[in-house]
């Protein structure tokens, strides 16, 4: 019995080795092929599922960056192409799609993702194959030393920074007794940690952290308990449709009368889907709001490009990240005069850019994009048109001090 198992294992090993050789052969050939006429950027995003509205906008804005690059001459006669794939908001699916993009479609770079979990699985696949991945979704873990590589870039804000900015703005103004209603997955947990860390310095006190499953449709069962705790601030640490549903039900239960409701991330798309009533008075952080165009010329230029391409509509926050994520990579290709992963990575590390929201750059040790955080409040009155949904309350200027230090992220060398 034991003997036969051993033989079987030996055979199996031979098959695996052989199979691996076959699998590698086309990959090697593929390198030569990739040098050809197009720069391919793989773009895995959750086109179906709870964050589909945001993902759709990411694609639309990314297409603008591609078009812009091609119309301004491309690079060395090469045009860029965006290969959009649906990762269905599932880490397994995201890994499979990314693997396909790299092995079958021979993409040069990967930009995309919209979930704390899927971006980690995309990152793992890209890291092993030495393909640059610029993540456009919030995560604290992605650029910690254990997940990070020379090929990992993070265009989006991270929970630590966003939650911190919102806490620094809201806790001193509205009170120190805090209840969290948290989606029970990486994003929610990271956001709560971000608030609690910033809150500690401000003397905030957590009354309860109530966890709900990702994608829950009904939150009413949690609300009487929250009401009885009488918090000063209720923080909704969930995202997309979850946030819409939660905001709606919180409004129905009249919690807003005595409690300030805030969200770490208040998205343009979520506000549009939820309507003015549900979000009235809710305050939150975001990476971008189109209304910043009065003060920031780059925002005006980006909005105008988007309006022209999409019949007058304005870009959302996550959409803008899709644009910036792709544009940075393409700019780095021009700077590096190459599509080679290492050379482009070095060019990205040098890059100082102002694509849409003011000056930004990637921190050397972890490739986190250092950028501003916008604090917005949802409007329900005096709206000029259907795009006019937020008031910009404050903009926290880009500052490395608000991030965790390189040492804290586990990076030994800070350059």
């Amino acid at each position, binding site marked *: 019995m034991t003997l036969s198992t051993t033989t079987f294992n030996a055979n199996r090993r031979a098959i695996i080795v052989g199979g691996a050789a076959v699998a590698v052969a086309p990959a090697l050939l593929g390198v030569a092929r990739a040098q050809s006429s197009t720069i391919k950027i793989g773009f895995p995003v959750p086109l179906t599922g709870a964050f589909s509205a945001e993902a759709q906008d990411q694609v639309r804005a990314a297409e603008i960056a591609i078009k812009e690059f091609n119309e301004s001459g491309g690079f060395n006669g090469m045009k860029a192409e965006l290969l959009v794939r649906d990762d269905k908001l599932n880490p397994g699916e995201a890994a499979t799609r990314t693997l396909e993009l790299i092995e079958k479609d021979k993409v040069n770079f990967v930009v995309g993702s919209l979930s704390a979990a899927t971006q980690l699985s995309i990152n793992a696949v890209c890291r092993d194959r030495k393909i640059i991945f610029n993540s456009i979704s919030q995560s604290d873990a992605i650029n910690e030393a254990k997940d990070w590589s020379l090929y990992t870039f993070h265009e989006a804000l991270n929970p630590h920074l966003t939650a911190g900015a919102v806490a620094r703005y809201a806790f001193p103004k509205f009170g120190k007794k805090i209840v969290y209603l948290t989606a029970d997955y990486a994003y929610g947990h990271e956001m709560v940690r971000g608030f609690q860390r910033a809150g500690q310095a401000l003397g905030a006190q957590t009354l309860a952290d109530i966890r709900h499953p990702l994608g829950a449709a009904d939150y*009413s*069962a949690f609300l*009487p*308990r929250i009401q009885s705790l009488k918090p000063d601030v209720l923080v909704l640490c969930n995202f997309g449709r979850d946030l819409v549903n939660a905001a709606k039900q919180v409004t*129905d239960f*009249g919690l807003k009368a005595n409690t300030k409701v805030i969200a770490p991330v208040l998205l343009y798309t979520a506000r*549009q889907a939820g309507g003015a009533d549900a979000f009235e008075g809710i305050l939150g952080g975001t990476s971008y709001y189109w209304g910043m165009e009065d003060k920031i010329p780059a925002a005006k230029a980006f909005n105008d490009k988007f309006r022209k391409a999409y019949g007058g509509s304005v870009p959302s926050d996550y959409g803008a990240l899709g644009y910036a994520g792709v544009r940075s990579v393409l700019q780095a290709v021009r700077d590096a005069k190459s599509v080679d992963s290492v050379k482009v990575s070095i060019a990205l590390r040098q890059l100082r850019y102002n694509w849409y929201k003011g000056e930004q750059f990637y921190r050397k040790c972890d490739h986190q994009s250092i950028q501003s955080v916008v604090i917005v409040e949802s409007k329900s009155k005096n709206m000029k048109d259907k795009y006019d949904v937020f008031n910009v309350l404050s903009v926290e200027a880009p500052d490395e001090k608000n991030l965790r230090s390189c040492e804290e992220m586990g990076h030994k060398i800070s350059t």
Partner: protein
Amino acid sequence: MTFELFLLQLMTGIALGAVYALLAIGLSLIFGMLTVVNFAHGAFFMVGAFFGVYAMGLTGSFWFSLVLVPIATGALGLVCERFLVRPLYGRGIDYPLLLTFGLSYVLIEAMRIIFGIEGLPTSTPAELKGSVNLGFGYFPLYRLFLIAATAVIVLGLWLFIEKTRYGLIIRAGSRDPEIVKVLGIDISKVWLLVFGIGTAIAGLSGLLAAPTRAVNPEMGIPILAESFVVTVVGGMGSLPGAVIAGLLVGIVFAMTSLFAPEYAEMSIFVLMAVVLLIRPQGFFGKAGLMS
């Protein structure tokens, strides 16, 4: 924890259970009569929400939608029964099950094409906004309305089935379709009507649920699973079973949320497992319906 909080939580559970009960009634009605396990029920719920909210956007009247939606989803159900489900009668329980499963995907995709994948924004009708003091705490007016509307629909359906001639034929048809046929009644018309009523109620519950949650093409998927739990707990094919189990599931969910929120989602499946172990046919189910 105070007694007030307990009562408030109980009300929350009843409001949740009301939606489950409405959906389960339709499922149970269709199963009890047609032995069709309607996997498209969640999709009809979703279609009802879309129709209703879209019409509300045009007319500005919630009440108009309340009349329109059951008619529209009922008509859709009639068409589906006549042309899709009917050819499969007599072929075993899995044929219509697979058909309706596929139909649910067609309906979801259709709504994505027509209304987009983001869904429609909804708000509570102006007349039903705000909350009421129940003596032990404030409760949203709309959720009270939801409970009342469910009671009215259940009562109406009960009167229809128990007290009218048509109801008599329906009841007879579910007991013994052969004899009903022998008596000269066209049983296929009865089945058509039952399927239509079931889908009309599903659509109506979609509209009623719409102001409390987001309307999007996938909204019917999780609630279908929960409604099947209700139907199984109450007993496949039993209307009182659907109502009682619906409320019970809502209350179990709400109470678990209060004491152990992490287990709330799981609690209703535990309830189902326990009921199945003790009483496999559910509270009011007849044994052997599935065989």
